[in-house]
């Protein structure tokens, strides 16, 4: 037979008062957190400043770089294996079943989860979200007088892409390229980048959402506060999807870090897409295609 337990009066009193006793401390933490959120930096004309401020150091780093949230047990296990757990704010990323894949694109996406040969990790450029989600940090340079914005990436191919802000249209006869051709504009506090002209040699996201030469990307980049970048991307590719779809990721300001010389080809052991013939890194007769 279970016996009733009786607690001493002092213990009951402490238990009941504990929320009251801890409230001031919690309030102090809350105030400190609120004070730590610094406002969005701006230029003198009010335009949002995405770049590092003079006299400071820092780069932007991705949080969870996934564009599609896992749904199945297998997908979730893969995410956990790779340590990606930050889904971002509600509504930022679609679930797997919400992505309007064409059948071949869905099957290829699933295939790539377990048979990954990602061009980016073989030192190839990658557009869209993969360009932003580079390891070791991303940096913006707003060349306002020149009406261009440059996005520099530290990892991967250690490259950059220009965003033309002078109101020009995309050229009619584009040579397809890894990054495509980007024109940008400000919509309020959001930088909106429109890109077309992709070749089919890269992935726009780390987990391999397929795209074709018909890809049209619209990226919206905003900086709601000093330490936060919200990156949204609409993928319009009738060659791979039955409708446009939108996803994104959050990025964090990493202070006191700077870009450094990163040479992807040095010591890269994943050679499959880096060699023009023979598919082996030790074939000295092969043509290197970095």
């Amino acid at each position, binding site marked *: 037979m279970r016996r009733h337990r009786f607690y001493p009066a002092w213990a009951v009193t402490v238990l009941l008062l504990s929320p009251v006793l801890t409230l001031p401390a919690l309030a102090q933490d809350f105030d400190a957190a609120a004070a730590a959120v610094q406002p969005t930096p701006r230029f003198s004309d009010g335009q949002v400043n995405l770049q590092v401020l003079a006299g400071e150091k820092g780069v932007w780093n991705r949080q969870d770089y996934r564009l599609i949230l896992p749904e199945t047990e297998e997908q979730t296990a893969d995410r956990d294996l790779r340590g990606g757990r930050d889904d971002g704010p509600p509504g930022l990323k679609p679930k797997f079943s919400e992505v309007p894949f064409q059948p*071949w694109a*869905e*099957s290829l996406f699933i295939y790539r989860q377990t*048979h990954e040969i990602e061009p980016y990790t073989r030192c190839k450029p990658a557009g869209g979200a993969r360009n932003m989600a580079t390891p070791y940090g991303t940096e913006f340079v707003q060349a306002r007088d020149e009406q261009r914005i440059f996005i520099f990436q530290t990892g991967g191919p250690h490259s950059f892409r220009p965003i033309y802000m002078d109101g020009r249209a995309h050229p009619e006869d584009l040579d397809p390229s890894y990054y495509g051709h980007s024109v940008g504009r400000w919509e309020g506090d959001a930088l909106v980048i429109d890109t077309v002209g992709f070749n089919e040699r890269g992935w726009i996201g780390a987990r391999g959402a397929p795209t074709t030469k018909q890809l049209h990307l619209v990226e919206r980049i905003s900086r709601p506060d000093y330490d936060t970048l919200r990156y949204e991307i609409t993928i319009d590719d009738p060659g791979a999807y039955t409708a446009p779809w939108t996803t994104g990721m959050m990025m964090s300001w990493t202070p006191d870090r700077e870009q450094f010389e990163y040479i992807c080809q040095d010591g890269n052991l994943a050679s*499959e*897409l880096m060699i023009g013939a023979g598919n082996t890194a030790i074939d000295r007769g092969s043509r290197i295609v970095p």
Partner: protein
Amino acid sequence: MRAKIPVLACVLICVVAMAGVAQQGHPLAGIWLGDWGATPDERNQVVIEMMWETTTLSGTINPGFPDAGTIRVGVLDSSDWTVHLEADAMDEDGNPFVIVIDGQLEELGSPKRTLSGTWRHGGAEGDFSLTRE
């Protein structure tokens, strides 16, 4: 077909040079090189160029030759990565014939993915093996 080999070799060099590096879009899009034949000893070199636009697969078998075949049916079943192609062609005497190809796509993640299976060409039947370049 043997007389075509030097010419075909030149065509292949050109198309491979244009093909460049790994293609990551639709798994069938691009230039495919290989051969088909009724027996292991009787092989015929072949090049197939395939394009993907929205929901349509198109392409040409042996582009640039009088007997080039135009792909009019192209189906990829991505549940098992099987491929069915039908192409219209004409022989040297101007008689039309149909090429029917049924194959299995493999090594999807590789820039040198492969496609192999059965090849029916007029009255002939054999196997084929192609690699994407």
